[in-house]
């Protein structure tokens, strides 16, 4: 391989530094607190309605473990069933290879535009940027992805990438970036949704190629499953002539009836609904109905190295519901972008470093320290991933790999701060103070010893120094 895994964003600061900046952003914190607070309550109600919830979780955990224990067998089975029904299966070792395959397939259709339905796998590999570089425009059609794309922003949540934006911010982004924005657009969610509908309608009707991810693939039958809410997924999966699906190799379930477990676990855990508005299932190509060319790209990109770790491999059970983000006290305060990856929150803290699989990547190695080990994530996880166990395991692994470097001490300090609410509060106050003396994240005047230096030039917020000061004050 040798190339960098785009699952983390180039140039992202280590978690403690990024978190400190985010803590100072009160708008972000209040948007997040509001959204996650709402969804937590609703999820609890949706789960309480199910007397057999714990049994479903046990079954979900076991089914995913079964798939992982025989992943080679199930993948070959899936390949065979998809091929028999008229689909074409491709394999990709890493992000670059997957991007290359998709770009080639799009070019073969002669189209220079694709419509996309939200997919974590394609976000993970940086597909949009790769297509753009190859002269193909990728149009995100999911409302939250559209908000992120138009706002030139980064996703901050698995399910709702624009969760850090409130309604009035969204209206501003639409007003600024949508060429056909309706006059007098209000910040009523209904109005905003209507604007997105009108904006994308023509794109859907003329699209020749769509790119999707997959929530599940049934090894036995070759059926691919996508859950969504808006109908943009159905548009992408139904209207174009060519459909390209990029899917992590761990997304399998053995048989069709096994899906009965996950179709109950996922909607209640993610959007707190009994069922999401639309779930599409397709198998290869159906003559006269939907795309007549179907390509399935099976993506490794660090999954096999994750699989090799006996403790860490449980992260591959993840069905990307985002329940662990919504209950996480650290995520609620720092937001998703601090994690520097498309996978934020507790799942990101254990999945991202494993996918990156590079002990010298300091940013990725800092992520397992982004937790107070409170255990709320484990309690809500529909496939019972013991996130605290994996966090502790990865922390030990990172310290073994790199010794007691200044970074590992700093990260241990971060972990120590996150593990106490009062320390947390103090750290937040300190972050607010740092904000007071900085403009646009740059410090124009430092008190004390830094003063002479900053008087001649703007200094970027000095990550290590102030972190040490923070550490000293809280520790001392």
């Amino acid at each position, binding site marked *: 391989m040798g190339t960098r895994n785009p699952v983390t964003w180039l140039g992202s600061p280590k978690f403690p530094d990024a978190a400190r900046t985010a803590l100072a952003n009160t708008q972000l914190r209040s948007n997040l607190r509001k959204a996650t607070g709402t969804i937590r309550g609703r999820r609890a109600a949706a789960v309480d309605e199910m007397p057999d919830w714990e049994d479903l979780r046990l079954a979900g955990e076991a089914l995913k473990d079964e798939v992982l224990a025989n992943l080679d067998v199930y993948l070959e089975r899936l390949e065979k069933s998809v091929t028999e029904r008229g689909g074409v299966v491709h394999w990709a*070792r890493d992000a670059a290879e997957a991007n290359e395959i998709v770009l080639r397939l799009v070019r073969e259709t002669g189209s220079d535009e694709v419509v996309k339905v939200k997919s974590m796998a394609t976000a993970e590999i940086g597909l949009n940027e790769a297509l753009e570089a190859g002269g193909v425009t990728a149009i995100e059609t999911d409302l939250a992805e559209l908000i992120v794309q138009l706002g030139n922003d980064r996703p901050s949540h698995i399910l709702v990438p624009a*969760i850090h934006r409130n309604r009035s911010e969204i209206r501003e982004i639409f007003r600024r970036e949508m060429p056909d924005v309706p006059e007098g657009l209000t910040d009523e969610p209904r109005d905003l949704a209507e604007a997105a509908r009108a904006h994308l309608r023509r794109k859907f009707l003329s699209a020749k190629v769509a790119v999707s991810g997959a929530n599940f693939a049934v090894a036995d039958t070759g059926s691919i499953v996508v859950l969504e809410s*808006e109908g943009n997924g159905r548009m992408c999966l139904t209207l174009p002539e060519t459909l390209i699906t990029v899917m992590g190799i761990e997304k399998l379930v053995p048989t069709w009836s096994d899906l009965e477990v996950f179709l109950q676990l996922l909607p209640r855990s993610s959007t707190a609904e009994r069922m999401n508005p639309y779930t*599409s299932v397709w198998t290869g190509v159906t003559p006269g109905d939907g795309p007549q060319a179907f390509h399935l790209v099976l993506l490794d990109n660090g999954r096999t190295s994750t699989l090799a770790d006996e403790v860490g491999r449980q992260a591959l059970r993840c069905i990307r519901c985002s329940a662990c983000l919504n209950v996480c006290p650290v995520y609620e305060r720092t937001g998703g972008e601090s994690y520097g990856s498309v996978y934020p929150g507790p799942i990101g803290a254990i999945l991202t470093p494993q996918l990156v699989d590079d002990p010298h990547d300091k940013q990725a190695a800092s992520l397992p320290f982004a937790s107070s080990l409170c255990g709320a994530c484990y309690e809500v996880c529909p496939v019972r991933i013991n996130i605290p166990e994996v966090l502790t395991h990865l922390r030990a692994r990172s310290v073994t790999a790199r010794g007691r470097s200044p970074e590992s001490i700093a990260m241990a300090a971060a972990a120590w701060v996150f593990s106490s609410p009062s320390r947390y509060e103090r750290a937040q106050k300190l972050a607010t103070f740092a904000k007071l003396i900085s403009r646009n994240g740059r410090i124009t005047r430092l008190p004390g010893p830094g003063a002479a230096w900053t008087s001649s030039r703007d200094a970027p917020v000095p990550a290590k120094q102030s972190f040490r000061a923070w550490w000293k004050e809280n520790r001392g």
Partner: protein
Amino acid sequence: MADARTEVLARIRKALGDRPSPVVVPREYHRTGPGSLDLFAERVADYRATVHQVAPDGLVDLITSLLAGRRIVAPADLPPDWLVDQVTWLTDSPPLTVEDLDGSDGVLTGCAVAIADTGTIVLDAGVAQGRRVLTLLPDYHLCVVRASQVAATVPEALARLDAVRPLTFISGPSATSDIELSRVEGVHGPRTLEVVILRD
């Protein structure tokens, strides 16, 4: 260099050097349930879809009252008695274009299966349902569900379905939770869903 397929499979086999022991899947969860037509009606309504319940002899009048004066898409094999007068029917034979569908007032279909627990209807492109796009582009969907098609639970429903048909599970009108995580009805799919439960 080996091809990607060979290499990924080899990596998996190497990673599973400890080949974890076979997993026994505990299946204590409920496969069946009491699910009733009333529960189904209630759960569909929870999604802010409109629900009607009729006896078979009331169906034609109900369809007429709901659709009169409108241009409605019909799958080619819709039961003939559903094709009531006073409606301009756009029949999908020969296949309608996306412009035809986009310009219609709505669509009338049956379904394959419904799920009481979750208030879901499932289309499988079978009898009285047509191609997937027919229920996607029109802004209004009227769906007739026969009592015998209602399964109590998700497991019961999946057991009745054929996985290799193109399937669409529909739970309420198109919606989004993307703005402050609250559900708002009406994005790209039909913004209005009406369900008729036909009591056998």
